[in-house]
């Protein structure tokens, strides 16, 4: 055993170790990464495989282990170093893959490329690994640490620097405590140094209580000596001879590794008595925590080490650097802080400051977890924009889900929404947003996360962990939690939000310790940035993310804008009761054929079956039922209530207008719908192409509405709303949609052969002849652009689509884009129109500029371009599909109805009332283009409001619906076995291109029943 009695001995041994390693460098080396997660993912079996294979093939290769290198998403990972081709990382290995790696790579020197990690990803390239640089060494072998200059920092400090110089260097580096508060480390050490006492202590806080943070665990498991060395240097600097590492008991591997490392260090005279022969004495004791988050607070921690309850000391109290553990001057720092010390001493403060910002120097490790594609442990320079970590390195949420917020700082921190995601990750900037840097846990949240539930989750945690001493925390936090529980149960009120804020601010200001001071932060930030979610829970009794279980049974029904009884009709389909299923749908939805074909199915996004295998094909099942009903001539006869004398005028016979007509007529009112076009159906009739929705179906459903007694007057444009009141109508609902196209305002826009998309589609749907050229260019990236392109293709032209967005950013639905590409239409991404070119007065092409970015730092649509990167796309016809606006010129301002910019009508989002009494507005004309089911919901909401208005009731935000489960719906559920969705088939692309026939084929009866069997019947949960 090498006892290092002097610095020279250390240096000599270092050289020997390095010489040995040089010899080994001619051999292939396998490092199996075996942190806690690696082991959980199966790394032990991988290690065994490698050992066996290498022995069996008698290869002269080295196999070693290390802790985790932070590639959590891809565990188990293995690094292979080969003298001939350097170092690669294999990801997601299973033992079956090992033989090939051994043969092809270790023996043959050629990596198995398809299994290798792509290290050109931003996840890797944006990192600056200093703390994590040694994660690949074997933590059980001190030699490997020493080979990387381990303990050389200590040697330098003990023999070349005075205690003051060490503290000076740490101060100059600007190192801030990495535990969360960011207090300047040098200043803390100086205070302890100055304290007059010959017994002092150094404590490493390795409690890491923040759920979602494990940076410290990885360093303790992977590079324990860096912490030991850092503490020893600290002990020297402040004058302490005893150190403690307070490790949480939930980290058994870290505890084992630390104990082993400390023992090895002692054996080599790097710890304990007479370190490196300098006479300096310092030892470390490892103390296990016992599961108390509050013991992360400095005074609670010291009390815990004393064997007592970890209850923070009351104020006023002396600084821990003066009176700490056992009443002695104590320095308490985080694992990462200590791990930074040897680097700072060895390489100097200036080196440390080379990265980071002026007041937040250096790097920081972060655990990127939650709803993120590339979850892992990363180290980045402070000052990096948060968006780079979450979106570039992390890749944003998986499965195409929308990013919502990132939680930083754990239960003491706050959430950062999209519009602030460009914030610089440094101590000051983060606190300005109401959060704290914390120890480094970053939890990404997406559209399926409820912010109210998340706030409640954190409060539940801090409530459990509160020590109970002071009233603000002990009583205040449970009170806040009660309110949040009430809100998630649908029993909250708007006053509760004010109470939450008031309570929260008071608890922050008056709590005894850091736990209470920061516990309300998650709630306060959630309220600040996501107030609309709280309001939805309170006013609408809805949880938009479909998480708060007490508000609903089945998530599909809950997120459906018309709250259709999805589990009900699927259960009926499963039993073969198709007529009942159809009638159940018709009770709530007057246009099931339409929705069955073109709905954007938010229900499927929340279908719980999606967590097992695939979500149910709900839309397609609805389509099946409606086709069946059509075939079997099923007629749904709605029940009509008694005749009321009031008359209602509806302007616009689109889905919103007709849905309102349907509901109002059922209530007994007389309804007249005024439509300016020669056909009814609105955008569904004149906007949606026939290959997505056959027009006969709409015709049939509109006929059914007319049969109820609704009068639809075609070719009747309304110019004056007041006149309607004069004619005896008691209320008016404006649902005229958005049928105008937006202009680009670029040169050449007024040439012939340039069409507005909405007008183009309308003319086709009305049967008018449209003459297109041979080469059509469609400008736009949304669904409407896809509609235009595919329609133009069917008229015989060659079509190209040009859009600002990259393929990931395109707003059109994924399945629409897929079908478009299948039909041979090419999409040119990231180009913005500059001007339309012409020859002899005829369109000859489109000049475009390359897009620099579509969205700005706040995530808002704000395209910027490279003005000098210009190219030309050839074409003789242009179709503009860049957006729509309403034609509300018929609304005179004097009427009292307010209009927003571009003409959108301003109405209350819940009651749909405008400022003019008796006039309501809804659908696209208010919200801008949305989906058909949202228009139906708006129509139903309008009908509800109008009824209340006419009955002199107060307009209320909630729509009343009767519970309509009048059919026998079976209660049986089968065992869940994994089974993917029954495939929905499309017509072959080659056949589709030349006809406007519907692209998607319906299910057969057997297919429908088989798919319906997959439903988990979430509505039956007790």
């Amino acid at each position: 055993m090498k006892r290092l009695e002097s610095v020279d001995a250390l240096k000599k041994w270092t050289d020997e170790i390095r010489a040995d390693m040089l010899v080994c460098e001619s051999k292939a080396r396998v490092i199996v990464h075996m942190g806690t997660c690696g082991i959980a993912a199966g790394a032990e079996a991988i290690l065994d495989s490698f050992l066996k294979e290498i022995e069996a093939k008698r290869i002269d290769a080295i196999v070693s282990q290390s802790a985790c290198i932070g590639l959590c998403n891809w565990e188990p990972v293995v690094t292979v170093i080969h003298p001939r081709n350097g170092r690669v990382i294999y990801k997601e290995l299973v033992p079956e893959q090992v033989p090939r790696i051994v043969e092809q790579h270790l023996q043959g020197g050629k990596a198995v490329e398809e299994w290798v990690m792509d290290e050109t990803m931003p996840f890797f390239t944006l990192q600056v690994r200093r703390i994590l640089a040694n994660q690949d060494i074997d933590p059980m072998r001190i030699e490997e640490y020493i080979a990387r200059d381990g303990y050389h920092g200590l040697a330098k400090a003990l023999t070349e620097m005075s205690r003051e110089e060490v503290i000076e260097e740490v101060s100059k580096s600007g190192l801030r405590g990495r535990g969360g508060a960011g207090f300047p480390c040098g200043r803390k050490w100086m205070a302890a140094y100055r304290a007059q006492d010959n017994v002092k202590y150094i404590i490493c806080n390795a409690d890491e209580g923040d759920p979602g943070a494990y940076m410290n665990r990885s360093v303790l498991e992977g590079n324990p000596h860096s912490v030991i060395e850092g503490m020893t240097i600290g002990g020297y600097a402040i004058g302490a001879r005893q150190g403690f590492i307070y490790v949480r008991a939930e980290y058994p591997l870290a505890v084992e590794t630390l104990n082993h490392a400390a023992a090895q260090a002692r054996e080599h005279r790097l710890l304990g008595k007479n370190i490196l022969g300098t006479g300096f004495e310092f030892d470390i004791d490892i103390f296990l925590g016992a599961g108390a988050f509050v013991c992360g607070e400095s005074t609670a921690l010291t009390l815990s080490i004393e064997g007592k309850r970890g209850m923070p000391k009351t104020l006023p109290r002396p600084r821990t650097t003066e009176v700490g553990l056992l009443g002695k001057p104590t320095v308490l720092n985080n694992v990462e802080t200590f791990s930074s010390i040897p680097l700072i001493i060895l390489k100097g403060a200036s080196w440390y400051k080379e990265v980071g910002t002026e007041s937040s120097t250096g790097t920081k490790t972060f655990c990127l977890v939650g709803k993120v594609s590339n979850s892992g442990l990363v180290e980045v320079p402070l000052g990096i924009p948060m968006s780079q970590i979450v979106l570039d390195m992390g890749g944003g949420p998986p499965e195409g889900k929308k990013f919502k917020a990132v939680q930083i700082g754990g239960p003491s921190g706050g959430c950062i929404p999209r519009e602030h995601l460009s914030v610089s990750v440094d101590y000051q900037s983060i606190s300005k947003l109401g959060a704290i840097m914390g120890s480094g846990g970053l939890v990404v949240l997406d559209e399926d996360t409820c912010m109210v539930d998340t706030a409640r989750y954190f409060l539940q945690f801090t409530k459990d962990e509160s020590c109970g001493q002071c009233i603000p925390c002990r009583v205040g936090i449970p009170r806040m939690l009660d309110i949040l529980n009430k809100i998630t149960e649908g029993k909250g009120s708007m006053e509760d939000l004010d109470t939450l804020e008031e309570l929260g601010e008071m608890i922050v200001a008056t709590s005894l310790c850091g736990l209470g001071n920061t516990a309300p932060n998650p709630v306060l930030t959630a309220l600040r940035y996501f107030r609309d979610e709280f309001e939805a829970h309170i006013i609408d009794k809805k949880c938009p993310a479909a998480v708060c279980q007490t508000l609903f049974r089945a998530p599909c029904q809950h997120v459906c804008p018309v709250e259709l009884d999805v589990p009900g009709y699927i259960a009926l389909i499963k039993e073969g009761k198709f007529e009942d299923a159809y009638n159940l749908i018709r009770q709530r939805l007057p246009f099931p054929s339409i929705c069955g074909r073109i709905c954007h199915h938010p229900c499927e996004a929340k279908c719980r079956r999606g967590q097992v295998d695939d979500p149910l094909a709900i839309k397609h099942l609805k389509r099946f039922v409606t086709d069946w009903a059509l075939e079997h001539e099923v007629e749904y006869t709605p029940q009509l209530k008694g005749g009321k004398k009031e008359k209602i005028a509806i302007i616009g016979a689109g889905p919103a207008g007709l849905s309102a007509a349907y509901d109002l007529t059922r209530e007994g009112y007389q309804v007249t719908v005024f439509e300016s076009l020669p056909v009814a159906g609105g955008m569904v009739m004149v906007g949606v192409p026939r290959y997505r929705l056959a027009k006969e179906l709409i015709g049939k459903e509109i006929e059914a509405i007319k049969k109820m007694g609704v009068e639809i007057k075609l070719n009747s444009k309304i110019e004056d709303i007041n006149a309607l009141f004069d004619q005896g109508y008691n209320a008016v609902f404006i649902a005229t949609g958005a049928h105008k196209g937006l202009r680009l305002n670029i040169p050449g826009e007024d040439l012939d052969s340039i069409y507005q998309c909405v007008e183009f589609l309308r003319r086709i749907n009305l049967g008018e002849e449209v003459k297109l050229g041979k080469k059509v260019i469609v400008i736009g990236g949304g669904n409407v652009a896809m509609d235009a392109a595919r329609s133009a293709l069917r008229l015989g032209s060659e079509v190209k689509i040009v859009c600002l967005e990259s393929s990931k950013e395109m707003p059109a639905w994924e399945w629409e884009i897929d079908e478009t590409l299948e039909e041979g239409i090419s999409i040119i991404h990231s180009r913005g129109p500059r001007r339309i070119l012409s020859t002899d007065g005829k369109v000859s092409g489109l000049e475009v500029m390359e897009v620099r970015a579509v969205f700005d730092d706040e995530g808002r649509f704000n395209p910027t371009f490279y003005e000098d990167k210009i190219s030309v796309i050839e074409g003789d016809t242009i179709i503009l599909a860049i957006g729509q606006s309403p034609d509300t010129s018929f609304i005179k301002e004097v009427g009292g109805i307010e209009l927003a910019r571009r003409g959108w009508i301003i109405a209350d989002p819940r009651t749909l009332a405008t400022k003019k009494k008796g006039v309501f507005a809804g659908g696209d004309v208010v919200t801008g283009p949305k989906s058909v089911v949202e228009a139906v919901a708006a129509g139903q909401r309008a009908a509800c409001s109008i009824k209340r208005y006419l009955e002199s009731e107060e307009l209320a935000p909630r729509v009343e619906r009767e519970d309509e489960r009048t059919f026998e719906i079976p209660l049986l559920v089968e065992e869940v076995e994994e089974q993917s969705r029954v495939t929905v088939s499309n017509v072959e692309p080659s056949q589709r291109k030349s006809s406007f026939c519907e692209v998607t084929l319906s299910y057969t009866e057997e297919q429908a029943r088989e798919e319906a069997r997959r439903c988990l019947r979430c509505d039956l949960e007790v």
Partner: protein
Amino acid sequence: MKRRDMKQEVEKELLEDFEQIRNIISENREKTGALIRVLEQTQELISYLPPQVLEVISKDLKIPLSEVYGVVSFYNFFTMVPKGKYTIEVCMGTACHVRGNPRNLDALRKEFGIEIGETTKDGKFSLDIIRCFGCCGLSPIVRVGGDLYRRVNPTKLKRILTQYE
């Protein structure tokens, strides 16, 4: 059974353990924070901390029993209730919460009919929650009998539990 008889029953069981417990106490007596160290190591040995053991520790370390009890009740780790043969620990960390562990917890509650901190009647499984294992990259995590399982859902859980006899 009378209270005195119950006490004697437990003491009989623990007789051999008492010897080891006394060793633990003497090894740690002089160390800082001796009480917590002793409690941790004792619980590791016999899996819980019954009142009789606490009395012994209190006497030997000369710490009032009320203070010992105060420490035991303060820290989440210590339990005075015997655990089952296998402890099922559901992680309630943020990443695990967001990725579905509440549903796993509910499924376990329903399956065994026990609450957090309780043990099944046959003594096979105990249900606990852990604040965070620090394996967030593999969330949601459930630990059964010391074995970590990743990316768990109620269906997988059922299968996993059948492996524990």
